[in-house]
């Protein structure tokens, strides 16, 4: 039985990796899926491949563009699930971090989640809904060169818990997924040495698959998790143990 029939799912950062896997899985579960990403070209290519996919090009760091997206969404009939998956990881030694790096990473990884969640919560409040934020095990685990990414994702987890508390009365659930090392292009920025060390540290001795993270998102999006809110769930092969 399909688990997301009659549900509208918006996936921010859906053009590749984990977001793409989520879009594919949720379409197969009967959802109306709206893929959102910065690149119109990538989205159009995706829409050619995934027949029923709806797309909306949006740079979430341009906050003035967020409201028009939700006005459009309101006319489409509303929203049941918002997945905040967009993220930037640019490893840098602490002494090499510039203001621009901070602004860009925090704008994408954390600040945009505020207006996105505000609008989404209002659209969901009549019948409830689920907001799923994609964090990282690095929110809780220190690794060299990841101060910016780690701090921004720690903010995502704090936001998740606070929003869960504020929105529980409106039947809007807010949870976070904290992936470990997942086999996506985000790992392209890591050196071979760092990647080898990471693999050595993972008890299950392999990278995770985007499809495995998508399965967790499906659970949090579906009614099967209807009594779960404010939680951060790691999916990392035991890396955070």
């Amino acid at each position, binding site marked *: 039985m399909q688990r997301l029939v009659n549900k509208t799912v918006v996936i921010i950062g859906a053009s590749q990796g984990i977001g793409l896997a989520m879009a594919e899985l949720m379409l197969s579960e009967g959802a109306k899926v709206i893929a959102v990403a910065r690149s119109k070209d990538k989205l159009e290519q995706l829409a050619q491949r995934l027949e029923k996919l709806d797309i909306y090009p949006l740079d979430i760091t341009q906050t003035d563009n967020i409201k028009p997206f939700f006005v459009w969404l309101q006319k489409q009939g509303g929203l049941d699930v918002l997945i905040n998956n967009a993220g930037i990881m640019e490893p840098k030694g602490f002494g090499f971090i510039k203001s621009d790096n901070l602004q860009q990473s925090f704008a994408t990884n954390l600040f945009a989640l505020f207006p996105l969640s*505000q*609008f989404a919560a*209002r*659209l969901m*409040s*009549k019948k409830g809904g689920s907001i799923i934020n994609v964090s990282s095990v690095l929110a809780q685990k220190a690794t060299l060169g990841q101060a910016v990414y780690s701090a921004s994702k720690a903010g995502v987890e704090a936001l998740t818990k606070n929003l869960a508390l*504020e929105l529980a009365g*409106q039947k809007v659930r807010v949870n976070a997924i904290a992936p470990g090392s997942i086999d996506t292009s985000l790992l392209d920025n890591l050196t071979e040495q760092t990647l080898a060390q990471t693999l050595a540290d993972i008890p299950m001795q392999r990278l995770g698959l985007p499809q495995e993270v998508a399965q967790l998102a499906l659970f949090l999006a579906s009614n099967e998790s209807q009594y779960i809110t404010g939680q951060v769930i790691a999916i990392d092969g035991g890396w955070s143990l």
Partner: protein
Amino acid sequence: MTNNEKLVHLFSEALTIAPELVVDSLQYNTIPQWDSTAHMVLIAQLEAEFEIMLDTDDIIDMSSVAKAREILARYDIEF
């Protein structure tokens, strides 16, 4: 139902108060029922009913029933 009747109904429903209490002078945070949580429920209901999306500044400014009517008028809702 007129837009004014809709407004009174939505305030009454969101704040769980009698419709007779929904008067222009009713202000945010002056009764226990109109707290920050109820305010967001009210905003969501207004947006759904009138098919609009309010700016954050307008949400914050909506501090009374009279002010709500004034703000909604800016979104082409006629009273």
